């Protein structure tokens, strides 16, 4: 907590939130673009409905505004760690499937994967500033890759990207919520300031 009390910690937190918001925005923008590319390259229908991806917390949540900052950060971190694993699997599957033939999609997937990792880093840093630190990843082992067919993998990839796009929106809202000084919101600063 000592770090959170210092002005530099506050600045650091604000900076992390600010850049996290922008990163989420960029991530969403890129994921939207990637979705178009992915649908096109994988020969999918953009309007195809996809079932919820296993292992990824749903972005939609009830009583969102009642969540505390830490809770928000933890949910976000869990989601992005899951996305990181899923995207890595997708990238690996893409490389296995197409090799270097479709470098554009591969680069876009890698870029989104990096952004997911970067955002997870932001969340971890914010949680460190919360003086509790991020939970270890060993506690939440990545779900094993299911044995799916090719089409199913494509649909699953589509579901991952759609969910990621929704999470990008939610994450931006969560971080904005964290930057608000309102004590009722359960923001980190208010809690940090409490004894």
């Amino acid at each position, binding site marked *: 907590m000592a770090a959170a009390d210092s002005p530099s910690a506050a600045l650091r937190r604000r900076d992390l939130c600010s850049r996290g918001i*922008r990163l989420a925005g*960029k991530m969403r923008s890129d994921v939207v673009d990637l979705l178009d590319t992915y649908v096109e390259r994988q020969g999918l229908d953009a309007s195809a409905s996809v079932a919820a991806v296993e292992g990824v917390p749903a972005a939609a949540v009830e009583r969102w505004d009642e969540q505390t900052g830490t809770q928000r950060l933890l949910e976000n971190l869990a989601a992005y760690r899951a996305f990181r694993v899923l995207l890595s699997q997708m990238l690996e599957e893409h490389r296995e499937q197409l090799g270097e033939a479709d470098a554009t999609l591969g680069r876009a997937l890698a870029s989104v994967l990096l952004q997911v990792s*970067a955002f997870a880093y932001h969340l971890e840093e914010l949680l460190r500033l919360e003086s509790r630190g991020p939970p270890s990843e060993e506690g939440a082992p990545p779900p094993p890759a299911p044995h799916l067919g090719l089409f199913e993998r494509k649909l699953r990839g589509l579901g991952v990207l759609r969910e990621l796009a929704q999470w990008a929106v939610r994450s931006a809202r969560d971080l904005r919520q964290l930057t608000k000084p309102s004590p009722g919101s359960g923001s980190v600063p208010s809690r940090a300031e409490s004894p």
Partner: protein
Amino acid sequence: MFSGWNWVAHGLYLLLNFCSLEVSGGLVQSCGHIIPESPVLALGSNFTALCILNESCLDFGNIYANQIIWKIKNRVVPKEQYREINRTVSSVTFNDTSSLATPLTCNILADGQIEQNIYGIAVTIGLPPEKPKNLSCIVHQVLKLTYPMTCTWNPGRHTFLDTHFRLKYRWPQENFPDCIPKDVNNSCTIPDVQFFVNLEVWVEAANALGKAESDPLVLDPIEIVKPLPPHNLSVNSGILPTVLKLAWENRISGALMKLKFNIRYRTIGDTNWMQVPPEDTASPRTSFSVQGLRPYTEYVFSIRCMKEDGVGYWSDWSEEKTGVTTEDKPSKGPPIWRIIDASRSPAFWTVHLMWKALEPFEANGIILQYEVTVRAKSSLSSPPEKYDVNTTNLTLKLPNGTYEVTLIARNRVGASPPSVLLIPATNSKAPVKNVRTLPKDGKLWVGWTAPNSYVLKYVIEWCLVSNSSDCIIEWQNEPGNVQGTYLKGDIKPFKCYLITVYSLYADGQGSGQSVKAYLQQDRPSKGPTVQTKKVGKAEAVLTWNHLTVDEQNGFIRSYTIFYKTVDGNETAVTVDPSKTEYTLSSLTSDTLYTVRMMAYTDEGGRSGPDFTFTTQKFGKGEIEAIVVPVCLAFLLIVLLGVLFCFNKRDLIKKHIWPIVPDPSKSNIAQWSPQVPAKHNFSSKDQMYPEGSFTDVSVVEIEADDKKSFSEQDLKPFDLLKKEKSTSEGHSSGIGGSSCMSSPRQSVSDSDEGETTQNTSSTVQYSTVVLNGYRDQTPVQVFSRSESTQPLLDSEERSEDHSGGADGTSQRQQYFKQNGGQDETNTDRPCFERTKQITPTNEGDLVGFAQLQISGQSSQLLGLGLQKNTQEAALPDVLQTSIEGQTVRPETVEGNPPSVDEMPKSYLPQTVRQGGYMPQ
């Protein structure tokens, strides 16, 4: 001893053979090796190498460490650096590796003093890498989603070794593969970077001698982005003529960064950009309306962007796009001026109105028409006259007077404000003063002193003065508050411009004040051609023509005349440029001078052609001063001579021109009893037919040989006779006797006869003695004179006595001598003159018969003389032919002299006509 050396050499030979066999057998086994093997050493460090001999070699060839010689290339390392560690190991130490080189060899000096290489190593010397400095990175946006990051650094000093650089970067929780530079050692580009996460970047340099890392650079790549410029820029004209609307597309996502912009613009043809105030475009946008533009003007726009907060880099400028604002009314009336030609008619002016087309920024569109209104101020009753003109000039013929001219330019949108020009009847207002010019910055500045009264504006007229073209007037307006301006036109250097400044008032105009000026002067293109107008003994008047204005190239400041003689120094005289004539003085007479002339402007001079002239030998009046006195002196001498001769005429006549008595007037005729008195002679006409003439022949007889003439003596006569034969027979030959004397004895004056005899004894003359002389009876006596020359004595004497004969005009004594070819010419006038006199003296005519005497018979002379004497008495014409020669008697007219006038002696007389040649 010899056998011992031989044994050593043989042993060494065997050793070498053994070693070579080892090598040739594929097993490389040397007698030793060096530690370390191929070291890489830092420059300047110390280094120790060991050479270790194999035990086998020791036993076989008696080779020990104390025999080792270290060499660098072929240079032996000083033995002070050696150290024998044991019998098989020798070391060498270098305190500074800079003295090392490759290879470093270990050699053995065998007993036979033969040096054998044992082993060698390659030494590499270099430097460890320095810490890379000045690491900086920039993210270039190359595509919409591609952001490579390029980092550059200073690699440091040259290491002389193969040094590898690596750009390392990582997130706190994630490492990325290193960026390895290709072909360079100071930059590397990371293909794609992620934003909003701090990235730690550093450079690692490594070589065989070590490794160094730069200071890490921690940054969010979003802060170092140089975005792509906006694209698809479009320019559209708005509703207002001063507004253009720009629109564009940004190529960087708004989610990535918010942008701010710079917009620049310029008019077509202008190179200077103007910029929209940055604060107006400091927020994200994709369009902007640029205001404050000029109507109907084409603009060029360009735009760039960067991160809104100013962190990062500006993008490049976008492609340029143009747009044109819409038209507006002309903002001002065209400048107008006039040229008045009053020379054609005293009562009317020819007014050339001219105006300048509006500048584009004033016209605000396409000028469709000009409207000119001319209003006579003097007669208010007359309505103004309007003219619609499409050109920029109008010529009107107007009665003298004051006029107000109004001009309006009109385009599609509307009309301009009117321009008004007052044309007064006379330019009676105060003019400007002190008009002056000054070339400055390649332009010609004109200045003037303003009049005291308020001036509405000034008009500056100028034209190029040239011989080859007319003065085409250009002009410009200047506001009334200035006193100088640059001429707005194509002012050429080396050309003369006539500049006139007019002051214009609200109610009149001042007269123009002019000045000539050059933008830039040069030397004249040619020099004056000098000539002489007049050349004297010591001076010469030179004349020349002024250079034409096209030849001057500037203001002629002076002329310089250079003149010199052929071998003399050149003399220069400076002459005022207004002169066209100059007198060179103090010249040397009768000398060739070369003269040339230079015309000078401010920039220098140029010489004209040489001209040569020669001064006169005599000055003006000198010849007169010499000739006139000489002539006067000559005239005086002549006059004196004449006077002298006049005074001494008698003496002269006596000596030069003795009087030859006229035989026809001889008293002998009277004396002869058969001859009637002289007044009984018939007239010439009666005696001789016209055209006949009686020649008189004179017989010269040697006094010493009176009786007989030798043939020699007669030769001259023969010659004369021959000459006579070629003539027409009119003249008598010398030597012939033509006396009218009868054979009777002549009576001579005794006194005269004595005188002649005293003076000469060679020539005898017949002497006619006038008996009437000295109060004697006027009986003509013809006697042969025994006297020889001088005749002058006789003549002088006779002249003395017959002076009255000269004064008697009626009397003509005609003594014809053989004059050669002149005879025919001289005879006739005499003859004619004689004829005129004839009527009054017919009775005095005496005919003479001329006797041509052949030189062959001198004796016939006497006979001839007698015969002739007889025949002479005959009144008729007598023609006698002797030896084929025709002797024609000729008549001589004349008054028979009186007794007193008759000459005493028979001497030649002066005959005014026909000439006389003394014998």
